[in-house]
């Protein structure tokens, strides 16, 4: 049964001194795809500045805000509605001939077509001597290997907030073995790419069940390209395959391509940003 979601995103930025000029770009609108149908968005900001709907360099929907007055506090509120079809992560034809898929990922044409999602970026580069941290078992299918990698990532690092940030790279994550969703996802991407599988970083929302939503953050997971099947979502933070609860916004090579909020703010002194995300659902009446 399809679910109707309503998502609320709030951000409040407070600055010690007057801000004379600022630009923000939000990458928070769910995308339209086979499993999710975007219905509508309402976006407001406390200064009543114009909200411009646009795209980023990869074609994902953005909202840009450029207030024309000075301020010390600005808050943003967005609410989205969308319909998510029931997703069965196992609803595909399994690879009949495993060797064919392994052969395919070796081909130059394949590597060139998926070059963006095979490359080592700042956040998906494994530290030296860790290139073989996770090796695919060639007797198993690519999908099975990715499932094992998903579980391996889930157990290899433990979830801990406030110990890493958006600048943390894999050397620290592998050494300290802790982090949050983007760290799990970067590690998964790096290891899958190391094994020749195109893998992309996905930013989105996770529905954690009615009654549990409370204060929450945005979520991140990965999509890996399995030959003969297509892009499949893996959520290594939860050891899950992406399902009806995963609402996708955008994808990219790593966090940098998908950061939900980019701001250029001309001010001095301290500043503080608070975000909250709420995801609620109800069954669609058929």
């Amino acid at each position, binding site marked *: 049964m399809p679910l109707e979601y309503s998502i609320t995103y709030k951000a409040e930025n407070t600055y010690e001194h007057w801000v004379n000029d600022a*630009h923000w*770009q939000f990458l928070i609108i769910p995308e339209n795809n086979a499993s999710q149908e975007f219905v509508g968005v309402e976006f407001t900001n406390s200064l009543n500045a*114009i909200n*411009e709907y*646009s*795209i*980023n*360099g*990869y*074609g994902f929907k*953005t909202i*840009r805000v*450029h207030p024309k007055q000075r301020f010390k506090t600005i808050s943003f509120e967005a609410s989205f509605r969308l319909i998510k079809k029931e997703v069965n992560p196992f609803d595909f034809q399994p690879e009949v001939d495993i060797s064919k898929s392994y052969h395919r990922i070796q081909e*130059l*044409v394949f*590597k*060139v*077509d998926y*070059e*963006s999602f*095979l*490359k080592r970026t700042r956040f998906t580069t494994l530290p030296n001597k860790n290139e073989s941290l996770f090796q695919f078992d060639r007797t198993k299918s690519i999908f099975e290997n990715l499932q094992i990698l998903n579980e391996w990532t889930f157990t290899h690092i433990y979830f801990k907030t406030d110990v890493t940030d958006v600048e943390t790279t894999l050397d620290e994550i592998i050494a300290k073995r802790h982090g949050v969703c983007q760290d799990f996802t970067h590690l998964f991407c790096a290891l899958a790419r190391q094994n020749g599988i195109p893998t992309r970083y996905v930013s989105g929302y996770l529905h954690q069940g009615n009654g549990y939503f409370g204060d929450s953050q945005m979520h991140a997971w990965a999509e890996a390209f399995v030959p003969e099947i297509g892009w499949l979502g893996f959520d290594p933070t939860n050891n899950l395959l992406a399902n009806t609860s995963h609402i996708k916004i955008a994808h990219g*090579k790593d966090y940098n*391509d998908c950061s939900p909020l*980019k701001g*250029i703010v001309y001010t001095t002194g301290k500043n503080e940003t608070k975000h909250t995300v709420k995801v609620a659902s109800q069954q669609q009446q058929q």
Partner: protein
Amino acid sequence: MGNLKNQMFSSYQQNPELYDEIYDNKGEVKTIYKKLFDIYGEHSIKDYVKLNDKAKSSFFNQGITFQVYDKKKTQEKIFPFDLFPRIIDPTEWEVIEKGAIQRSKALNLFLWDIYHEKNIIKQGIVPMELISSSVNYLDQMNGIDPPGGIYNHISGTDVIKHNDGKYYVLEDNIRCPSGVSYVICNRTALKRALFGVFNHYNTCSVTNYAENLLDLLETVKPKGVDVPNVIVITPGMYNSAFYEHSYLAKTMGVELVEGRDLFVENDFVYMKTIRGPEKVDVIYRRIDDAFIDPLEFKPDSTLGVPGLFAAYKKGNVTLANAPGTGVADDKAVYTYMPAIIKYYLNEEPILNNVHTYHCSRPDELKYVLEHVHELVIKPVDEAGGYGISIGNRLTKAEIEKVKKQLLAEPRKYVAQPIMSLSVHPTYIDGTKSFEQRHVDLRTFTVLGKDKEFVLKGGLTRVALQKGNLIVNSSQGGGSKDTWVLKN
């Protein structure tokens, strides 16, 4: 022809190992230079110095200066100018011009391909590393069709004349090549100082550059625009080439702006004017890729315009050159130019390439490490002559240091045999006489939609230190007026 009485060149020493552009190998002045040689020879060195000083002060008075970046400070300098011009005969020029167009067109097709289907890589003609490990490859450009299909609207192709008398391309500059304003100013300065010499030669004009540039930029206007509004954007007055930015805007008759003068609304670009916002359609940008839009690229850039890339991606504005062209003027791509020309145009390269060793290939790296003393080592992604090591000028300790750098980051370097750049008589303050100095030539090619233009002339750069082979202005080079003769 009274060579012996010639006062000006009487003490000119010819090194027989060097290719001299005005003397042939028998020590005779070449036909094309004879008249010039005689006219200059009527003057004394003293007269020459007077005229040269006048020309220099006119440069300074007009503010024709550039900045040199140093670790500690930036300095404003006059581009040293030499009044003895270089002459290129029409048949030689034809080769250079055709060769420059060929390279620019091939690079444009290469850029289209690597930002679309990538067939040249899929067919194994160039390696995938050229894009996957290049910091100048912009993933955001994938699938974008730039207006008119043009990426490298303006190309600066650097050529040299080797001691075999043939022209070789040293590099293709297709990000924001500079120097064209000096070409025009050098001509003006020479005309002021020695107008008479132009009566004896039928020299092609260089002052038509701006009108041709504007004309071709208008051919790549965004869809749906009737008469495009063209502007020039500069990083500002502290940029090394600010004079050129203002010169080009002035001679094209268009506005010169900085990032803060523009804004983006609903994915269109506007310029702030005292009459209110004015839509902008074509931007000749002299700001590097990383700085054009802080929301898409370098977030701490204050030079760019937030939202500019979205406007570009939607096809509402033309950027010249297109973002992401830097991937193709990488010195590693240079080495594949003969194959690239052949692949896209099915033609043989008109201009020669210098043989290049890729330090990323183990066998070639081995050769380079063993022959550092006879090679030029260049970083693949630096412009302006920074980071170049010339093997036969290095001490033993310096050679060891270069080897260490090569071993640490082989992908970062290529090596080439030391080319013997031709020499041209150049007045040297220190000895108060003309001496042989190495020269190269930067040519300027403009591509528009189904149209192209090559400036008939170019910037002859002179390495002012004796024996020096690096001619870049940022490395203390000077320049000469360059005459292309009409047929």
